[in-house]
Structure formats: structure tokens, C-alpha cells
């Protein structure tokens, strides 16, 4: 048995106790070698980090990182150029006014479509007004297709915010027990009505997102199965009723524990 409260010792070492409590604790610790040793250890461990600079990326590494991410997200480099060349409003107004005058003089009015906003910070691309939100929806609306091939499908995209039931798996499919599913909703429906695959594959060592799953399912003894598609990993947390049935299930993204589907 410890002769001291570790939480209080840690708080004292961190300097988060009020002065009165800290002074009282220090007086008590002065006569307790075990507590004094622990306090010294906690303080030393905290002090270690004051002696080192945080790890830094080099400028080249940072540039490469941003370029790789921008490429993966299909953010076109020319978009940055547009932003950095942003004009002042007065210049914009002058250019727009000159354009209007020139158009009025040189072109028939029926052909005039108005000046384009030179200060736009929208991402460049085939459709300059296509937002990332729309592009993401378009990407995820394509079942089984490569994300890069999402051009021209924005009008068919299902909304992702709010109703997750139509959300597809990022890779277009996910496989469980030989069956392939193209939406988390289909997967949840099938697993809920035919839970054999879940019950057979439950991994007692799986711990990711346990706290969230316990909160949602209301049962700390829930079991889990990891599901992988080529590009992402999800976890099905479920509560078994008996050897053949389950009570509830929730599918979560293993990286951020976002709920993808829930049954019932």
C-alpha cells in the first residue's frame, strides 16, 4: 500500500494545486520519504521536457509534406498562386470597371456575361467554384471507382453531412467473411441480421474506440471486430445476446472513432 495519493503528488509536481493545499501537502511529504521520492521523480520527469527543443521538420521536409498532401487531396498548386497574387479591392474595381467599359463598347450586350472575380480564393480546377465539400461528396458517391475518377459526378453526389446512411466506404468496398459491401449501411444491416461473422471473429484484445463504443452501446463488455478495406479500417463493436444473436452494434472509424453506422 502506498502511503501517499499519487494523484495529489502528480498535481503538486505539475504545480496545479492551490497554494494552501500545496503547502499542506509539502509539510506532510517532508516526513514521508516514499512520498518525497515520488514527488522528486514526478518533478524530474516533467523537468526533462524543459531541457529539449521539440523535434522539428526541416523546411524541405515541410514543403514535401504539404506538396504530397495537396497532391493526395487533389489541391491544385495554381490555387496558391491565385491566393498569393490577390489584388487589392481598388485594383479589382478598376479592372472590373475597365472590363465593363470595354465590353460595352466592343461587344454586343447579349454576349456580356459580367466580370470574373479576380480575387477568388476558390481552389482552381476544371470547375473553379467546385468546393472540397462537393468534390468529397462526388468522390464518395462513386461506388467501387477510383477517387481520382470523380469528375463530372458532382450533381449525383449524396450529401454526407447529417445522413450517414448513404455513406460509402472510402475504397468503394469492404469485405467481411467473403462478402463485399459498398456502403457502411449495407454492412451494418447484414451484420445485424446475420451476426455469425461477428461472433466468430470477435477479438478480445481489440481496444480502439472502446470508450466511445461503451458509451454508445451502454455495455462495457461489448466485443469488437476489426474490418479493413484497402484504404481504411473500421471497427464493429457489438453486444452479444447469446451464441447466435446480438443486441446492438456500432461501426466506428478506427482512426477517430467517428460513428459510421449504428443498429438498431
Amino acid at each position, binding site marked *: *500500500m502506498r502511503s501517499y495519493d499519487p494523484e495529489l503528488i502528480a498535481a503538486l509536481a505539475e504545480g496545479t494545486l492551490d497554494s494552501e493545499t500545496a503547502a499542506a501537502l509539502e509539510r506532510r511529504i517532508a516526513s514521508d520519504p516514499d512520498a518525497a521520492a515520488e514527488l522528486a521523480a514526478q518533478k524530474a520527469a516533467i523537468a526533462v521536457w524543459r531541457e529539449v*527543443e521539440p523535434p522539428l521538420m526541416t523546411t524541405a521536409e515541410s514543403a514535401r509534406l504539404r506538396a504530397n498532401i495537396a497532391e493526395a487531396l487533389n489541391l491544385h498548386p495554381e490555387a496558391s498562386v491565385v491566393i498569393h497574387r490577390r489584388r487589392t479591392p481598388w485594383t479589382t474595381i478598376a479592372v472590373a470597371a475597365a472590363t465593363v467599359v470595354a465590353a460595352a463598347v466592343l461587344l454586343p450586350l447579349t454576349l456580356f456575361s459580367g466580370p470574373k472575380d479576380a480575387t477568388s480564393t476558390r481552389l482552381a480546377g476544371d470547375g473553379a467554384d467546385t468546393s472540397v465539400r462537393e468534390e468529397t461528396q462526388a468522390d464518395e458517391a462513386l461506388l467501387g471507382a477510383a477517387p481520382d475518377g470523380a469528375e463530372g459526378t458532382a450533381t449525383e453526389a449524396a450529401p454526407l453531412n447529417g445522413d450517414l446512411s448513404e455513406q460509402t466506404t472510402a475504397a468503394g468496398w469492404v469485405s467481411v467473411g467473403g462478402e463485399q459491401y459498398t456502403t457502411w449501411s449495407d454492412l451494418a444491416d447484414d451484420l445485424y441480421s446475420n451476426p455469425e461473422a461477428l461472433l466468430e471473429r470477435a477479438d478480445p484484445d481489440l481496444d480502439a474506440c472502446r470508450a466511445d463504443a461503451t458509451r454508445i452501446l451502454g455495455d462495457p463488455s461489448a466485443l469488437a471486430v476489426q474490418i479493413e478495406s484497402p484504404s481504411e479500417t473500421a471497427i464493429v463493436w457489438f453486444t452479444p445476446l447469446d451464441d447466435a444473436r446480438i443486441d446492438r452494434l456500432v461501426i466506428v472509424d478506427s*482512426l*477517430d472513432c467517428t460513428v459510421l453506422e449504428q443498429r438498431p
Partner: protein
Amino acid sequence: MIDRAREDADLVERYLDGDAAAFDALMRAHESRVFAICLRTLRDREAALDATQETFITVFRKADRFAGRSAFSTWLYRVAVNTCHDTARRLHRTQADSLPENADPADLAATDEFASADMRPTIESALAGLPEEFRSAVVLCDAEGLALQTAAEILDVPVGTVKSRLFRGRRMLVNALGNLRPSSNPPMDERNA
């Protein structure tokens, strides 16, 4: 902190609306810390850079899921920690591995020769010896200075669990560093261990 959270939420909205400058701003604000978390978790520079990249790609691709329920940074670091743990498992790296040659972080900006040349590899080596869950608590709370509540949200465990892991992780770290003189009367639970 609240201002940062508000600014991040605004940047995410702007990014979703197609504002390329918002992407740059979010990267600038968070890439260093994400990289630091990854390097201290994985102990391998290239693996840490890869994990940092994977983290940001995941977060930006799923940015429309961010509903402001928690701070953007909490969500981002949560993805970073989980990505690093997945990477570590994939690479079959155990905490007992020796420090790879390229694990010493770049020191282009460091001026303290003692800290950069001697202390850091020792600390990183000691940190590497900690079990994953204790290392994560120490990295997030002590190395990165995040609040216990934030670390709890990132690690998806109760605050009490973070406190416990942090307490024990610090003790393990100090023991590994050998910075603490052996107590003549160590705690009872250690004497009986």
C-alpha cells in the same frame, strides 16, 4: 486556446468551401506538433513523416465529419496518435527496439548543443522503452503540454486513466534516464514488486 479552436473551426469551414489558403493555414498551425507526436511515438524520422502525412490526408478527407464537437486539434491529434499506433503495429516495432540511427530529430533550429546532441537521444531512448499507452500519455501531457482532459479525449480513455498512465509513465521515464538517485526507502509497492 479557445481562440485557436475557433480559428481552426473557421478554417475547416473555409477549407470545405474550397479555400486553399485555409489548407495552408491549418497545416502551418498544426504540422509541427503532429510531427513531434509522431516522431516521439514512432522513433523513426521517415515513419514519422509518413504518419504525419497520412494523418493530415485522413483529416482533410474527412473534414466534413468535423462538427466542432471537440476542438479540431483534439480530433487531429487523436487521428495522429491512432495512425502512429497503427503504423507501429504494422512495422512490428516494439517498445524494446533500439533507437534507429535516424531517430534523432533534425536540429537545424536547435542552438543548445547539450540538449540537442546529448540529452535528446537519451530522452528519446528512454521514452522508447515505455509501453505504448504510458508513452502516449507522457508525450501528450508532458512533452506536448496538453491538458489531461484533452489527452483523455485524444486517447479515448477517462481522465483518471490518463493520470494513472502519466504518473507511472513519468516514474518509468525517470528510472530509465537514471536521473533520480535511488531512494533509500522506495515506495512499498515497488519493494514488493
